[in-house]
């Protein structure tokens, strides 16, 4: 399928091929929302999506969703953002998701195995509005016990209605309602109760191992209940405020835009996964740069092949590429309090880098400086290495406040002679020097000996050289100074190396 790349063909092509206008508008609106959430949707992909929805039944929500995802989302990290936009945008457009009809709220229950359930069963006609908190709690317990998805959905609806206290037009986010609902449901308590129940039934006490499996099972059910509750809150909010407003409130930065300094624990975990491919790329870049422009020994096979153009006369000798040299990397990282969050990330980066390169030496400093290369060597678990660095490395000289000048001096005295013409040096820090002497001549001396010195700064560009930051003073002696606050910028830095 050939596709024109020029804008404006967008609508024309799609209508020509006979898509009804309502769907076209709907999709266009959806794609606008996706782009607003930061997802890079190209025109080609847009057209593919239009083409794709023609082939799937529109009534089938799941298939429809996957059709859109397959054509529009080309990165697994973006899946979550896509899902949020999808759920918000199409939240009021599915059959089962209509919001007005409270009568169908409680799903039909199989009445036989219900003990504490009669009461609520009788009240179904009234939409379950009159459920007492105890009855709701019992329903919650039963639905989790049996892992009944339908029933969980009913419970979620009831719980949100009763506990969230949602009022039209109230300017609070969904998390507030979620918190209120969950607090009233006391899921932790329910989990304990479920586990106790299980033990009583089993008779003899189960081993820790069995308990653990049981707990995981119930936990996963509770998680799915929580998802139902979130979805319910979202639906109600969308109904109240409209799609655009909701999509805007729920918008979160994509993983590559998450600021290292303010990353939550979950975000940190996904960042860690993303670092690994990046270091491979870094390795490739550094090696390739060395490969250019030099010739290795004669390549016989290719020479013979080339000689065919001259009737078998080897007129054009071909050479092998020289074996690329392993680059040598020194990483010098600030792990002081002011960059604590960044430092945690930095250490992960160092760990990942040391897995890629054979010759990596890592140093950490606050006002003193220590080599930590050995702490990353042969360590299987990164958390252990980070813990060791934080506890064992001797980085405090006087008061444990950053002193770049002194740290650099220590480095120069102890390790300066190890720098060779093949060494790339990466310094990670915010250059907030607490008004100590900068000793920036050391950077100059380092750069004279080394292949390159790069400075990565976790602070926004606009903060540089304000207050006690003296990054500008160091920068004049570096090959480059980069603002690196998120993965996108880190990737930009790696690309710059090429």
């Amino acid at each position: 399928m050939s596709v024109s790349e020029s804008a404006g063909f967008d609508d024309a092509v799609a209508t020509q091929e006979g898509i009804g206008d309502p769907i076209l508008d709907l999709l266009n609106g959806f794609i606008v929302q996706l782009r607003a959430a930061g997802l890079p949707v190209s025109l080609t992909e847009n057209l593919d999506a239009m083409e794709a929805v023609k082939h799937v039944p529109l009534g089938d929500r799941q298939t429809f969703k996957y059709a859109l995802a397959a054509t529009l989302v080309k990165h697994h990290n973006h899946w979550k953002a896509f899902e949020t936009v999808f759920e918000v945008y199409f939240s009021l457009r599915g059959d089962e998701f209509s919001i007005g009809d409270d009568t169908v709220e409680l799903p039909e229950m199989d009445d036989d195995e219900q003990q504490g359930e009669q009461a609520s069963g009788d009240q179904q006609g009234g939409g379950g509005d009159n459920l007492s908190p105890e009855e709701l709690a019992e329903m919650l317990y039963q639905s989790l016990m049996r892992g009944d998805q339908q029933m969980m959905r009913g419970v979620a609806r009831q719980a949100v209605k009763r506990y969230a206290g949602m009022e039209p037009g109230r300017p609070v986010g969904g998390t507030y309602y979620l918190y209120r609902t969950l607090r009233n449901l006391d899921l932790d308590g329910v989990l304990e109760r479920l586990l106790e129940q299980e033990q009583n039934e089993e008779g003899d006490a189960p081993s820790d191992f069995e308990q653990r499996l049981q707990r995981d099972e119930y936990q996963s059910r509770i998680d799915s209940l929580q998802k139902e509750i979130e979805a319910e809150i979202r639906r109600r909010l969308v109904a109240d405020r409209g799609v655009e407003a909701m999509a805007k409130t729920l918008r979160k930065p994509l993983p590559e835009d998450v600021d290292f300094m303010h990353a939550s624990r979950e975000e940190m975990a996904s960042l860690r996964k993303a670092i690994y491919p990046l270091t491979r790329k870094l390795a490739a870049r550094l090696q390739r740069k060395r490969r250019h422009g030099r010739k290795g020994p004669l390549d016989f096979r290719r020479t013979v092949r080339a000689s065919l153009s001259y009737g078998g006369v080897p007129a054009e000798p071909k050479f092998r590429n020289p074996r690329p040299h392993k680059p040598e990397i020194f990483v010098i990282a600030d792990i002081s309090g002011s960059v604590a969050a960044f430092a945690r990330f930095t250490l992960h980066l160092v760990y990942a880098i040391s897995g890629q390169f054979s010759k990596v030496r890592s140093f950490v400093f606050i006002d003193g400086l220590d080599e930590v290369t050995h702490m990353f060597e042969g360590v299987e678990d990164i958390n252990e290495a980070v813990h060791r660095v934080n506890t064992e490395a001797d980085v405090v000289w006087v008061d444990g406040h950053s002193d770049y000048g002194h740290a650099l001096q220590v480095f120069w005295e102890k390790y300066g002679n190890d720098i060779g013409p093949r060494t790339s040096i990466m310094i990670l820090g915010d250059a907030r020097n607490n008004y100590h002497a900068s000793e920036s001549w050391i950077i100059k001396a380092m750069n004279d000996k080394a292949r390159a010195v790069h400075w990565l700064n976790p602070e926004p560009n606009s903060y540089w050289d304000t207050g006690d930051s003296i990054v500008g003073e160091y920068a004049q002696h570096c090959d480059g100074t980069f603002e690196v606050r998120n993965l996108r910028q880190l990737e930009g830095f790696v690309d710059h190396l090429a």
Partner: protein
Amino acid sequence: MSNRFSDVASLKDELAGVDYLSDDGIAGVVYLADRLEKPILVEGPAGTGKTQLAKSVSEITGARLIRLQCYEGLDEAKALYEWNYKKQLLRIQAESGGEEWDDISDDIFSDEFLLTRPLLEAISADEPVVLLIDEVDRVEVETEALLLEILSDYQVSIPELGTIQAKQIPLVFLTSNNTRELSEALKRRCLYLHVDYPDLEREKEIVLTKVPDITENLADQVARVVRSIRQIELKKHPSVSETLDWAKTLVLLGVEKIDEQTATQTINILLKYQSDINKAIKELATADGVSP
């Protein structure tokens, strides 16, 4: 537009018929790929059945599977085509003196002297084929460009011969273990499918289908233990194939109910790093569940 599959549900059933248990996402994307005539880029952790998907699809469509295994240093000569230069040389020598040079030079750059490699073979085949480009993330970014022409237009341009158009549109699968980011150009040309570890129910089904003589009860327990292990932060989580190996082992050992001891003794089938094994054993023995 081709119509290998009538709808998503029946495709799912057909895949199940050859022992590949798909879900809505997987079946939906394969179905779309057929309808839109686009390649599928399948990404996901190792051992989740990405390659198997291509094999299974070729099995149900009765198409020949042509496989290109990617590796660092893969080049045109290995992926697309190569001139059979020995034969060309022989041709030149056999005719030396007798014929005009112009005739020979036209002659030695013809089909007869062309060695087809997987990509060219896939589009020049007369019968239906499924093309599997395996572990595409292993080639360098520059080599990816080799694939672009065939992926978007199903054609190969050979300077000496001209452009070879596909006789039939092959169903193309590219798999990637995500060790590096693929280029935008490549991604734009493909439908994207992320295959993750299956959820509890699907994993249990897979174990039941693939492991003969396993009881439903044991399969259920296997799936549960594996799920718990995947929740622990490890270097390498157990893949589906490792789950299957483990299940087979348990059947061979005649285990009927997995207790802590059996799990500890056989966990080395699921996990391949000593540090992971230690961690998992420790974690599984604590009743409190997920510790941070």
